[in-house]
């Protein structure tokens, strides 16, 4: 039975897989129809007819991950690392009967590039579904507090 604790553990584990660069295990957390969305507007509703920083399906997420390991991926020499600092997830829905599980988690994210280190703050929203005994991500949404500021390269996943 999926409980609020199951959701919380899932959110922590997802971030940990990113921090430890277990890319395949991380991709396995996603539903085949999943999307990874990073909006470009405050409380944005439409990912298709409004601009976003990212709105990607599994195919595109795989491209990103495969690129990271490429021999000629010059912007990953040296490789970036990342760190997620999460607040306790706020459970917005935990309804096994309806199959609806939602959490929103405040975060500080750090990404390195050589000697440089960039910090970002925002909220991660997880829309989850139950597949067999497991939770899978239908939508991971990253709302940066300063989504409208001009950033340098963001190469990993928040």
């Amino acid at each position, binding site marked *: 039975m999926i409980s609020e604790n199951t959701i919380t553990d899932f959110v922590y584990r997802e971030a940990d897989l990113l921090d430890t660069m277990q890319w395949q295990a991380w991709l396995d957390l996603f539903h085949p129809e999943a999307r990874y969305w990073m909006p470009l507007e405050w409380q944005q509703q439409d990912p298709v*007819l409004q601009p*976003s*920083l990212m709105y990607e399906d599994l195919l595109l997420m795989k491209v990103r991950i495969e690129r990271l390991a490429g021999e000629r991926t010059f912007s990953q020499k040296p490789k970036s690392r990342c760190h997620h600092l999460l607040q306790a997830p706020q459970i917005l829905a935990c309804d096994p009967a309806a199959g609806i599980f939602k959490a929103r988690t405040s975060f500080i994210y750090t990404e390195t590039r050589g000697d440089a280190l960039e910090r970002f703050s925002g909220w991660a929203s997880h829309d989850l579904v139950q597949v067999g005994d497991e939770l899978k991500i239908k939508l991971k949404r990253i709302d940066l507090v300063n989504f409208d500021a*001009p*950033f340098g390269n963001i190469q990993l996943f928040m």
Partner: protein
Amino acid sequence: MAKYENNPRAIRGLVREAEVHRDVYVDPEVFELEMEHLFPNSWIYVGHASQLSKPGDFITANIGRQPVVASRHSDGAIHLFYNRCPHKGVKIASEPCGNTGKFFRCPYHAWSFKTDGSLLAIPLKKGYEGTGFAETQANDGLSKIKNVVIYRDFIFARLSEHGVAFEDYFGDSLSTIDNMTDRSPQGKLAVEAAPIRYMHTCNWKMLVENQTDTCHPMVAHESSAGTAIKVWQREQGDSTEKPMAVQLYGPFMSPYEFYEQSGIRIWPNGHGHTGVNNSIHSNYSDIEGYLGQMVAAYGETRAHEILGEVRHNTVYFPNIMVKGAVQILRNFIPIAVDRTLVESWVYRLVGAPDKLYERALMYNRFINAPTSIVGHDDLEMYERAQEGLKTNGNQWVNLRRLYESGEEPDVTAVINGTSERQMRNQFHAWAKYMTMDMDKNLDQPGEAAE
């Protein structure tokens, strides 16, 4: 130590026939002179009239480093001002866009100005009686920029009072803006959202040059576009229809031969474009209903003529790039010698199917974003160049690909698509617009006065 100030000969010496000195990218003094001479002497993109649809609407922008504000007056006219209160210099508008109502009101001492810039009111005005205030520049209200041209809703301005006229400056290069606008069945574009913005720690000219650099995609973008093709080939399974995403990424891996035959067209004053005969945008899927709309609006022949023109990147010297086929304008805004703010705007084709806007937005976040894997490749190259150019062993950047001795400057020509001639064209214009008013200051005849 001032090497270049009031020294047009030294500035011109930075640009050889097919090489440029690294100081154009790394010397802070050269950057200062660009802000003082090049940007004021050139026609600079400010914004799009669709951002000023109602009276009182305003947008802010920078021309070089100077903040400006454009507003729509009650009579429908668009005015452009320096964004400072004539009193103490406080910016009268701080947001990228908004509606100010009937007047601008300075937040410091409540001086107010009509949306045509004229002074409306000053609190406790009697304090200025008999002070000679009426004879000061402040009495005229917001300082107006006189040389403003709105071409098919694209607002351009030249800060210098004297210089090259708009039509002479852009000439036939305006055909790319025409083509982008004509792609709307109503001949109308609209800005509906903020641009994607990102910051590059490199000189602004590296980004501009890269727009017509056709020998880098298959190398620098192998890691992004090449990987996209590889993953798609592996994962596609039985699906036969290429997803929009793969259609957009894939052509970046086109071979040298493709770019060679696709051609480059150069125009006078540093403008030019890639993709004369065809381009990386040629083979996108048709979008249902669109061709029918275009034929109904323009007739069969003209509709096919408009849609058959799929230019790749058009550089409008000095610092914007327009992609008609995907309705994108990138503005390379200089912040410092090694810092460039990019704003990548998408225009909606008014009256066209949503799918076209969806594709343009998708292209923009795939290619022109801090989260773009293609952009990651490019920024890495610019940053390495910004560092590498500090070396003294070789102080020249080589732009000699397909150079022919005796190349005429300021001509219109179509050439091999892998030529670096458009970069040479830009640097010729660079030296010209950097120095045209320096000569005047030195009491010599200018090279190209109006």
